[in-house]
């Protein structure tokens, strides 16, 4: 069970959270092409490596937030608020 460091509540067990999928996928305006719309809905990088993803502390403060996690190891590298840019990991990862 992962240990997830909610930016508002601190480290908590994974079962308190709901996964929110890949982060930083902006919802386009309603007049975009079919291709762009389906890309927003369905296409994902499915990164093998460091993935920016969303979690919601659904059984806690209720907030959505973002995290950087290495999907090869499940180790987290950062937790950050919605609306803030993806942290620059430099050459670290």
């Amino acid at each position, binding site marked *: *069970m*992962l*240990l997830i460091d909610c930016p508002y509540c601190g480290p908590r*067990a994974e079962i308190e959270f*709901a996964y*929110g999928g890949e982060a930083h996928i902006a*919802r*386009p*305006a*309603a*007049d*975009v092409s*079919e291709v762009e*719309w389906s890309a*927003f*809905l369905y296409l994902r990088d499915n990164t093998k490596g460091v993935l920016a993803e*969303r979690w*919601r502390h*659904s059984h806690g403060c*209720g*907030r*959505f937030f973002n995290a950087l996690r290495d999907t090869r*190891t*499940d*180790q987290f590298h950062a937790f950050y608020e*919605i*609306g803030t840019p993806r942290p620059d990991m430099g050459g670290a990862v």
Partner: protein
Amino acid sequence: MSGAFRLAGRGCIDTTRPVVFRFDGQMVRGYAGDTVASALLAEGRHLMGRSFKYHRPRGPVSAGSDEPNALIGVGEGGRYTPNLRATQVEIYGGMVAVSQNRAPSLRFDIGALNTLAAPLLPAGFYYKTFMWPRGFWDKVYEPLIRRAAGLGRAPTAPDPDHYALHYAHCDVLVAGGGPAGLAAALAAGQAGARVILCDENAECGGSLLTDTYSLIDGLPCGEWVVRIVAELQRLPNVQLLTRCSAFNYGPHNMVALNQRLTDHLAMPPTDMPRERIWQVRAREVVLAAGALERVLVFEGNDRPGIMLASAARTYLHRYGVACGRKAIVVTADDAAYRVALDLAEAGMKVAAIADLRPAPGGPLVEAARARGIEVLPATTIQRAHGHLRVTGAELAPVGADGTVGKGRTVSCDLVLMSGGFTPSLHLHSQARGALRFDDALGVYLPGESIERVRSAGSCRGVFALDDVLRDGVAAGLAAAGGETGPVWTVTRQDAPGTGGFAGVLPRRGPGHLALAFVDFQNDVTAKDVKLAVREGFRSIEHVKRYTTTGMATDQGKGSNVNALAIVSNVLGRRPEEIGLTTYRPPYTPVTFGAFAGHARGDQFDPLRLPPMDAWARAQGAVFEDVGLWRRARYFPRAGEDMAMAVARECRAVRAVAGIFDASTLGKIEVAGPDAAEFMNRFYVNAWTKLGVGKCRYGLVCRDSGFVYDDGVVGRIAADRFHVTTTTGGAAGVLNMMEDYLQTEWPDLDVWLTSITEQWAVIALQGPRARDILAPLVDGLDISAGAMPHMALREGTIGGVPMRLFRVSFTGELGYEINVPSSQAQAVWDRVWQAGAAFGLTPYGTEAMHVLRAEKGYLIVGQETDGTMTPGDVGCSWAVSKVKPDFIGKRALALPALNAPDRLQMVGVLTDDPRLVLEEGMQLVPAADSPMPMSAEGHVTSSYFSPALDRSIAIAMVKGGRGRMGTSLYAPSLDGPAVKVMLVDPVFYDPEGARLNG
């Protein structure tokens, strides 16, 4: 003293407390502290089990959790448990144990005939045969194979015991209570860390419990253990758990432990859980898992009476049992010499020590020789003799070139083997730690890990006792962040066990017919492993899967290194090029019930009962599960079946009024200055123009354009909406709202609160609903003029705060009375009493379904299945044409979502008005279409309609709205297809006159 092989004055058993138990129906006498294995061995009995494939007679090889052979069933009735290791099962008075996988008896097992067929049954033989004739596999061959396979029989009665779960947190978790673990735990504990130390055995000490030679701070090892354990117990920050195995190392240092609480007790306290799983989140983990002695692979190495040298030492020192009268020791390291000396000192005869090494030397070897034990250097064991018990062995010289000469046969009743020690890497490997092959030791050792974990002691190749203690202290300090730790002086100890052997022992001749076992339980022999390699299975994972080596209940603890060495030798490649099979959790088997813990019976899942549940129960309602909720389905009166009760309930609603507990509907309060804007973006409907005090049916799509949920929404104030969702959709809709609000539209000043359980909902539906309700609402004008259909009023009902919705899911004049949950029953009672004179009738979910179907109202999840658009279900009218955006807008413009042949919601009528279609029936164009055929649609809802006095159904049909009046056929499972006609789905009161009454 009972037991001919029990040695007086030895062992830690309590000889003042005799214990009698049964094994295969016979009384066996042991003592408190014995295991089944030690008690049987004390009677001179090694034969305890039969192997998986060849049903070979087997005795214990080990004295612990790595035992592959001595598996037994223990207990009776619901407490019977198969496949327990006799080497671990602690006896108690009255215990009933049985041997397994034998018929008719352990000594005479008909299955042993398989050994004769062994040449025909090499590894993977089943892949090559049983293919002819086709169809015989699962009818003839497979049942035979299945009967022969399996070990113990499965329990056939429910387990009466209960199990517990406990979450724990610590700074340092120490797995293993041997010398390294004790040292680490004490060092970390003294440094102030919160420590948990667990050990799978009944007491801590590990190898120290059988070491009668070494002295620590001048104390015999056993006494030192007692002292350290006492020190640990004095520390309030240290938790000591025995009979507790660390079995699963999960991500982020979550380690699961399995604590066995009652299995060793004759009369456990009633409330005592049988086992408890500890889910430990540790800041740091110290693995002190120790090392396991390796078996040697030679012909007949599985005969009862052949065991690990360390096991014999354990039986001697822990249980006071001599495992035989006359032993042969076969070894490739020094450790077995100490065992030989201990045995000799205890009065057993050691006929010879066959040492595979060319020139063994050193103090232990000299001590053995000095004691008069014959030491045979450069000697292998060609073959062991005997059947139900080893009777002797041929010891043969190994030449400098590796060839084996003619040997001599030495009689014995015990063969002890020692192939050196394999560090236990299971938990380290589960923690995704790297492994590296150590050439000097010839074994894998732990490397780097992504987790905060470190190994200490022999599980990382540190063997000398003083080194082990220092290593443990260092690990404990590092984990706890401590500076100084305890220091002990080891004044007498054996040299560490260098050397060792892996693979097949040298032998004379090719041994094509020899059965030299690598994996005892699964009967995998050295030639099976070689055959796998010959057939192209080169990866160790392939070898494992093809031969099943390492897949028995000991999970390869004793076999993996030998299998790897054999493959390595055959291919002439280094072990690390072959790889190592993945260590899969659990470390040792864990009871299913322990995982289930408290989640059992009624507590398996929360049972959510709506506010009027007790009332419904008192009325004799029949219930159904809807998600976690249990809802009243119908209220049968004496002599009524479901159809009769539902018909009566429906008629009552249409004729008078019905009362229904609708409290499970999801409810969300949407409040804030931007509430209307949020609603506009979230729902397909438009909300700006909805006046305060008005309601509207709302439909939610996903951004994929497919219907997700629906419900009535009321506007309480300009900045406040009372949203309802389906019962099943409550959590999902709120989550989806939060998702868009927090991540897409964080600028909106609007906030969401679940009020599902704040407000109970009493639905009062029927032409007399107003007459019943009007006198109760404390002066509120609910006349048709003052409160038309889809109006919303706040008020009180008998002084209780109320949100009153004039809405209808039945097509009748109706109200949904929202009152605070704690007062719902009182309000319900008042309405019920007021309605009595009118003939108010309670109705359940089934009548609710019929009534709404008569009106053609859809149920999300019944008419829709996740691929329906609003247009498909006849709700295009709800979709705003003017809003610039809302969830689903873009997708709803896709051509495929507007195709004319999409499934559309229609009504369906059978020719025979008495015939009720079955929900899920498919609709096809012709009665006699050949199979397979494509469906034109399917029936989603089907009922007998009391109002129409005929059957009705709703269906989703391709292009259905353009096919009104045409016919389709519904093939039945066991009769002719039923002809149906497509009609408008609103069967009853299509003008809606009753609704507005």
